[in-house]
């Protein structure tokens, strides 16, 4: 099955390491994937604050374009790494399916531009695709340099599992943990896997937003993790990029590497670190020395 890749606005700037590593990992696993042509912004959370109908229209255009790109009668599975885009598109998908009035309005608007949305397009997260479609057997087989001894705390964030739990348990998700275990890493269980990182509040109201991210970093560090694995560009940015500011503001300094789970996958697969965007991280991720070889990211 071929997938349609929806990057979203973040993946080509702050989330660049995510796009790079995801594409490298998918290529290594021979998963055919092609970027959606002329995709538009999903609206994220900010757009919904201004106009909800238009927000659904944004997502509907993307889904209509995906259906067109996939070709009539073919499945149109969109792989959406950014959690906010994932939720925005998925929410539109659910709401349009459950509310005929809304559906009619949106379809009418799309029709003005000659587009059609049938509901065929499915919104998938890379975690979903890797665990449920590809399977851990294929992933394990691709591991060349197991992350033995690396303690990983998996951080899912909010919008992957709430309010729709389409591919993982809502309260105790495990897809990322399953992947990390397949990579040979040691998974650190912690109770804040899905607690909010503060979202856009870290930029707009830093006293509030950064405090939320700080609580996560502090607890993960306390539980003895070497790295926090994330699946959302805003989560990764919030957890990583404000650490020096947090160290000044709050009780105890934090210095925890925060990587995208796809970067850790790429490391375990033995892929070229330049292709995984590892150098773009503020806090370097150190591969366990026991494995040997040149894994230490600069």
């Amino acid at each position, binding site marked *: 099955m071929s997938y349609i890749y929806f990057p979203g606005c973040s993946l080509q700037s702050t989330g660049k390491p995510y796009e790079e590593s995801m594409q490298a990992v998918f290529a290594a696993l021979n998963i055919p994937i092609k970027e959606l042509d002329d995709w*538009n912004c999903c609206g994220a959370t900010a757009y919904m604050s*201004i106009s909800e109908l238009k927000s659904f229209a944004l997502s509907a*255009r993307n889904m209509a374009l995906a259906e067109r790109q996939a070709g009539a009668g073919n499945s149109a599975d969109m792989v959406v790494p950014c959690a906010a885009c994932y939720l925005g598109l998925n929410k539109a998908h659910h709401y349009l399916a459950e509310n005929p009035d809304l559906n009619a309005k949106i379809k009418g*608007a799309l029709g003005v531009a000659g587009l059609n949305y049938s509901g065929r397009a499915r919104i998938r997260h890379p975690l979903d695709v890797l665990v449920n479609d590809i399977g851990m057997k294929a992933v394990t087989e691709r591991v060349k340099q197991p992350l033995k001894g690396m303690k990983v705390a998996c951080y899912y964030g909010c919008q992957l599992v709430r309010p729709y739990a389409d591919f993982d348990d809502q309260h105790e998700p495990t897809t990322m943990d399953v992947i990390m275990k397949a990579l040979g890493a040691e998974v650190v269980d912690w109770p804040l896997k899905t607690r909010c990182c503060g979202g*856009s509040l870290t930029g707009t109201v830093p006293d509030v937003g950064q405090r939320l991210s700080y609580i996560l970093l502090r607890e993960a560090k306390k539980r003895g993790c070497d790295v926090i694995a994330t699946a959302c560009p805003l989560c990764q940015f919030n957890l990583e990029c404000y650490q020096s500011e947090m160290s000044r503001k709050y009780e105890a300094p934090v210095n925890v590497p925060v990587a995208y789970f796809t970067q850790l996958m790429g490391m375990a697969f033995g892929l070229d670190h330049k292709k995984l965007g590892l150098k773009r991280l503020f806090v370097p991720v150190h591969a366990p020395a026991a494995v040997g070889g040149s894994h230490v990211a600069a």
Partner: protein
Amino acid sequence: MNRWEGWHKVRYESELAPHFAAEIASIPGGDHLYSCIQCGTCSGMCPLSHHMDFTPRQIIAMIRAGFKADVLSSYTTWLCASCYSCTVECPKEIKLTDIMYAAKRLAIREGVYPKRFPIAVLADEFFKSVERNGRSSETWLLTRLYLRTNPFKMLKQAGLGMRLWLHGRLGLKPESIERKSELRSILKALEKEHMIKRKGNTAPLKEVAS
């Protein structure tokens, strides 16, 4: 105003907005809010509730009772990070996050929100960028945000900006889709529509003195 004059005022029925609850409840699935038993699970789950002036539970009570001005001018709806914890755990399946969005939209439409408040400004800039180009450019978005709310902060964030640029994570090119007119025509078709059905007095509100 002294605290003893501003707090604990009696609220008269004529000050309330009797149709406010129905307006909010008109969003898809919004009628669940009438089933609220005020258990407080939403506020208990919400990681931001202790930063808010009214907890999410209080907001629902205020919506039901018609305290429109208080709800729309509170900081609560703006501090909601859309984490959906409340929505998932509410025993009456009230879509609190969607209600917060509805309140945000009404507040913007009626012009009742703290001026220069960063979150509302961010939403506005984001909106404009997407309407114009079909995408948002993170760097330019944040730049305009700081310029409009707190230019000083931009200087403070310059360090972070530099670090991001050095790591190749600062997109400087303004992002845009190719078929902008296609998107514009779709959005224009929905220009006059809103999901909230307005009832009763739709005159703009006075901002409640805080």
